[in-house]
């Protein structure tokens, strides 16, 4: 399979790889996917005062497109409010990375991951 240059770039130089302590009150963690399906994404956001995402990290088990989708997402969500982050659509990720149809599910997974991370943060706060 031929990968787009952007996928290759994110795959070879993934941005914001890492973990936050998930017990911290200002951290939201979203883990989506399943090993059985061949991809698992863990996206974490650190939310500052005023509900702005200050930092984001990820770890992904999956194909190159899954790794690139989550790497790109960490770049995009930084500096966004929770609502803005939740408004990111998988189609935008797929378009930016020029994902082929068979890899669209990787971008869907990334969208699920940010939603799950925001949800987790909100639950901790409530």
């Amino acid at each position: 399979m031929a990968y787009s240059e952007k996928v290759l770039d994110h795959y070879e130089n993934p941005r914001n790889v890492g973990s936050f302590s998930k017990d911290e009150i200002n951290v939201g963690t979203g883990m989506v996917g399943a090993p059985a399906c061949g991809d698992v994404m863990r996206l974490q956001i650190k939310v500052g005062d005023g509900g702005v995402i200050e930092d984001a990290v990820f770890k992904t088990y999956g194909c190159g497109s899954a790794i690139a989708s989550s790497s790109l997402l960490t770049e995009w969500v930084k500096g966004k409010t929770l609502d803005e982050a939740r408004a990111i659509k998988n189609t935008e990720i797929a378009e930016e990375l020029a994902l082929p149809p068979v890899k669209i599910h990787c971008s869907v997974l990334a969208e699920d991951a940010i939603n799950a991370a925001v949800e987790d943060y909100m639950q901790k706060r409530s």
Partner: protein
Amino acid sequence: MSEKHPIYLDYSATTPVDKRVADKMCSYLTLDGVFGNPASRSHAFGWDAEAAVEEARKQVAALVGANPKEIVFTSGATESDNLAIKGVAHFYRKSGKHIVTCKTEHKAVLDTCRQLEREGYEVTYLDPEQNGLLDLGKLEDALRDDTILVSIMHVNNEIGVIQDIAAIGEICRSRKILFHVDAAQSPGKVSINLDELKVDLMSFSAHKVYGPKGVGALYVQRKPRVRLEAQMHGGGHERGMRSGTLATHQIVGMGEAFRIASEEMEEENKRILSLRNRLWEGLKDMEEVYVNGDIDQRIPGNINISFNFVEGESLLMALKDLAISSGSACTSASLEPSYVLRALGRNDELAHSSIRFSIGRFTTEQDIDYTIDHVRTAVNKLRELSPLWDMYKDGIDLDSIEWAAH
């Protein structure tokens, strides 16, 4: 270090044509060569081509201990499998409609069996044991009075394990059930003596043995005689079992490839086995790596390894300097992990994490050392990226988590 990149380690998929084979094939194509139709009986062009085909038939038969009259040339192992299984099923339909095979067979066998199911036949798909080998007791239990055919592969294409076809042949013969063996992966790697084996039909391929693609053969035993219903009709070539003008240059190439294998396989397999051992020695101290399939009952050139917590397709991407294949079919549209590894009872993570390395005639020690180095680096890099690896390191049992399958 090898100058040529990527390094080819996918000899189970196909092999380059040996230079000696290619040179010989070239003299059966052009005006100054032997280009005649082997079926032409009225002139020397035909006679010469026929002589070349018969020489090749002898060479193929010699490698596998068969009589040349028992060799039917086809377009490849897939056609041979189709001809054997459908041919027997159709010819012997009055004796019964039950066929026994195994879940780890090649698609050429499995899909042919599926077609026969649509035609009203009944097929039992046996589960192999965890090492990829069949429990012969279970095979025996699956046989019925209306079983007409057992089809079991000799060497598995993904995991390289060798089934005990001698023992299976004894079981089938004692029950008067025909036995077909898909041996696409075995010539030149495992010695085969059809004179002794109780095998009725055996499929061969040329391009796995440094011969050309597009040609193969089916061994059809003469004593006791096995009958087949032809699947390709026409001029009655190959004693009516497979019509179609014989592809002289392809057949000559297959013959030459099998001749070379007869002469060189002993030495070659020693060398290839030492390369495979070198590869495994260089990787086995890594954490959470597993060999898929029995390590001893296996051809020298194959090793299939799962690197736990690393997804196969991303690993292939990191190893772009290596021409290898993932057991996981992620690169195809199905996104399903290998059905062979699943049939072995490997869990999904391990099935998704597998890489098949297949070593052959032109692999060097330098190739292997480069491979070891690159695989270690890539696996470590991807594990740093893997949430599953994190969880494993934290002592979390992945099976205890409720994953949202998607």
